[in-house]
């Protein structure tokens, strides 16, 4: 019996492995607003959509707060839509709301209960971004730029990806990694 459960858990692990990768089509998914109401990706998406996993307590994510605000302002004007998601089990909706108020985010932040969406994207750190084009295909995955210290940034990879897509050009750097805080996931029985 135990063995059967172990096999099922392994199968579930395989099935639950990263579903959305560079080049793959993203089907509709749901996040929750801070009142707990489900909101569909289809209701939030635009011609180009950026999904970014963020946190309230992660110093790396917080070091990007103002850069995220600038991104939002600069690219919303170009009809890019942004979906900011908090998937941390340790950061409840009321904390996310207070953090957004304190920082002055001009955008909504959504919750991803039980990190279901983070699992589908295989998001591991905060901040971590995904860019989805008009056909629903992921064209960029990774860091916002290459340094948490804004004065040391050399490459703004997320902006480069958005600019390329807006110009109808291929994204040159499709995946980048950066140091960040882990997404604090729910502990699932295995």
């Amino acid at each position, binding site marked *: 019996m135990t063995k059967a459960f172990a096999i099922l858990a392994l199968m579930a692990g395989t099935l639950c492995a990263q579903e959305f990768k560079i080049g793959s089509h993203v089907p509709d998914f749901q996040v929750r607003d801070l009142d707990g109401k489900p909101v569909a990706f289809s209701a939030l998406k635009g011609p180009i959509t950026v999904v970014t996993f963020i946190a309230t*307590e992660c*110093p*790396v994510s917080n070091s990007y707060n103002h850069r995220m605000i600038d991104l939002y302002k600069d690219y919303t004007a170009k009809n890019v839509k942004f979906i900011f998601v908090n998937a941390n089990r340790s950061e409840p909706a009321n904390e996310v709301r207070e953090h957004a108020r304190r920082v002055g985010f001009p955008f909504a932040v959504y919750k991803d209960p039980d990190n279901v969406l983070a699992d589908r994207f295989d998001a*591991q*750190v905060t901040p*971590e971004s995904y860019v989805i084009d008009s056909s629903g295909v992921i064209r960029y995955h*990774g*860091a916002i730029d*290459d*340094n*948490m*210290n804004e004065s*040391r940034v050399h490459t703004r990879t997320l902006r480069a990806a958005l600019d390329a897509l807006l110009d109808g050009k291929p994204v040159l750097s499709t995946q*980048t*990694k*950066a*140091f*960040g*805080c*882990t*997404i604090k996931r729910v502990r699932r029985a295995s």
Partner: protein
Amino acid sequence: MKRTLAFLFCLPLVASAPLVPLVPINEAGFQKLVEAHKGKVVLYDFWATWCAPCRAELPQLALLEDKLRAQGLQVVTISADDQDHKAAAEKFIQMFRVDGPAYLKQADNDDHFINAIDPKWSGALPALFLYDKAGHKVRSFVGETDMAEIERAVHRLL
């Protein structure tokens, strides 16, 4: 317990002791480090001063190394802090009495550095990479990990 008491009693001394400078390391340096440590079981601990779970893990790793050093365990710490936080990282290493070799990541490109350490690693901290005596990476522990699980994995290699 002994270490905790020693830590508390020695705090004033530690505070005034000279800091041991962290040695800069890039991806090529890491490969040399792995070569140099063949013959020992090594836990490479990637951490940063801004990472709370990393700070919580450091003293536990120091204890684990104390316990298993004689059997061949070596803990090597590599701070992912940038140069601006080098002094703070050195203070943490000193405060937590981490005795093993301590390094500071000095990479031109974090993306390349992370991929060189482990292509499957996202860059999330804390991250521990366990190498066997032959210098092969056998396991990784990313995020908050139960120290007992790490110890069991180390024991299997000693």
